[in-house]
């Protein structure tokens, strides 16, 4: 035996189990909540029921994944929600009559995100304030474009969001596909490895010859891209644009990433976990409504659910060393 191995090199089996259990936590929470809901209202357990229950999760999942990319770099994005709002405004205003303009606007937005990423990197700025500033910029731009809710999503877009694919409802398919794609790109692929590595130790990847600037810019651009997709799907669902529609996505997205096993220290994120986390959080709201919690305690109960689920994560982690 090597000298070091005495203390143990290979992770012991319980550690593997623990990390598996930890990864499974959002799924367990999801299943428990679903079970409670179905128990209260068996009719939910149907194609139609699941369609309605999960309908609004698609944009949330996309936004949360965008947030996840930023958290992967050790940053945080406080502008995510208002960005989605801006995209809904652009979509509802232009996509129907002037698709070229709309697409150009999306590209410009993604570039803007990338540019802010570049600024954060070059000046080593705290992302929390820069993205706070960005949130004002997006919201301001959205209000300038659409001073009050309105506009109309193109028919094909709302049509697509109403589409009833075989076997499973659209939002569930979307969740599966997005989670899988995220898993392949971020967790499995060789380039995802570089991204995660950079989040943990940018110096190490830089020393291995990767351009950390390029990585940050690309990741911010990708986060912007996911924000655009979130805005598009949201417009499809609501059929209109509204500057103030999604500020809540910011903090829900952050919570979803953490719930899904992510960490603010950077480099540790799970796309599958994030998707599950987003589903759990949106289901938490539903659960409260099914449980008919009194209006006074509806907000507080949401805090309670957050504690419950995340505390489970901690209990698993607290296995003695």
């Amino acid at each position: 035996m090597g000298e070091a191995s005495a203390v143990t090199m290979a992770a012991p089996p319980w550690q593997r189990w623990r990390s598996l259990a930890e990864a499974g936590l959002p799924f367990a929470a999801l299943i428990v909540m679903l079970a409670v809901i179905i128990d209260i209202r068996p009719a939910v357990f149907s194609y139609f029921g699941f369609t309605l229950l999960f309908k609004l999760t698609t944009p949330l999942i996309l936004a949360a994944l965008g947030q996840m990319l930023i958290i992967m770099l050790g940053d945080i994005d406080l502008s995510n929600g208002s960005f989605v709002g801006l995209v809904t405004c652009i979509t509802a205003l232009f996509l129907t009559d002037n698709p070229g303009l709309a697409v150009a606007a999306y590209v410009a937005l993604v570039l803007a995100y990338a540019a802010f990423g570049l600024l954060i990197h070059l000046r080593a700025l705290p992302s929390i304030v820069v993205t706070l500033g960005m949130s004002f910029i997006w919201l301001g731009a959205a209000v300038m474009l659409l001073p009050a809710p309105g506009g109309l999503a193109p028919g094909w877009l709302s049509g697509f969001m109403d589409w009833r694919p075989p076997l499973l409802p659209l939002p569930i398919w979307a969740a599966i596909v997005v989670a899988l794609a995220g898993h392949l790109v971020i967790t499995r692929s060789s380039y995802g490895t570089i991204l995660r590595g950079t989040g943990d130790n940018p110096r190490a990847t830089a020393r291995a010859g990767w351009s950390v600037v390029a990585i940050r810019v690309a990741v911010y651009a990708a986060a912007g891209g996911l924000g655009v997709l979130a805005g598009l799907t949201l417009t499809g669902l609501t059929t209109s644009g509204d500057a103030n529609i999604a500020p809540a996505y910011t903090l829900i997205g952050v919570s979803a990433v953490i719930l899904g096993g992510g960490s603010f220290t950077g480099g540790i994120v799970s796309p599958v976990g994030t998707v599950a986390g987003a589903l759990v959080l949106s289901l938490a709201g539903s659960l409260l409504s099914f449980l008919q919690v009194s209006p006074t305690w509806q907000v507080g109960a949401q805090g309670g659910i957050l504690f419950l689920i995340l505390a489970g994560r901690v209990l698993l982690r607290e296995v003695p060393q």
Partner: protein
Amino acid sequence: MSTVRIGPLLPPWSYGFIVAFALWIVTISATGPSRAGGTLVATVAFAAFSVLVGTGQMLVIASGPGNIDLSIPSVMTLAAYLAMSAMHESDGLVFLGLAVALGVGVVAGALNYAAIALLRLPPIIATLAWSFVFQSFAIDFGGEATLKPPPVLAASTTFRAAGIPILPGAVVVLTLIVMVVLRRTVFGRSLLAAGQSERAAYLAGVEVGWVRLWAYALCGGLGALAGYLLAGFTGGAALNMGDIYLMESIAVVVLGGTSVAGGDANAIGIWGAALFFNLLGIMLNTFRFQAGVRLFLTGVLIIAIVALVPHARARA
């Protein structure tokens, strides 16, 4: 290890004051010099509240990377509600009300830290979850009405001596005290040490847990104090009275020169940033920009300031 030091001629915290001054000049150049004093007084009066909550937030942020308190608005509201109900608009009970508010704030802060330390939740999540709970408590304690302050409290928060509002003066004194505490007390040093490196602080004999607990408790206490005074200043405790302070408390701290990486606190800078924030709103209103443009310019200015202010960076 390396430090990047851009030879700044001015300390980082001074930029808020400079920009605030510039905004003030721009504003009064549009409205005429006779308005200068009035604008300043109005700004300072509201900046005082931002400084109170910002100072609490600063203690938390300085206590280590990732530490942040999102429950400030709901603590403000809850404390104000409980204090106002305790006082029943009776002048004799103002100190009781103050004690109630501070007690609520300190307990709330302690609960925040308990969730962070015992459940190992990231502070952003722990304080968010608590803020939901506090909000429900506030609703439960009479959310259907605005609770009035005793006349003495209302009068003292708006009291002026020789035209100068007294409350901001008191907050300036508080800022000075906090500066001394940070530099010259065991708590202050311990806080900054814990904020720079938790492990190094532990091994250097710092009681990291206690120090963080106190940081959160003080943050809760200051938030509660702000809520109590704001209720006096604006004529009552209302459910949504604290909402604007969620992001503002963070922004004034960071724009004031405190590092989000922890271990570095700047109390005086909060004043500069708070003045900047309030004057910005005033200037944009004065020039009657559209709402969208106002928001847009606010964002641009925030980013411009953080991007331009030189800041010390220490990276291991």
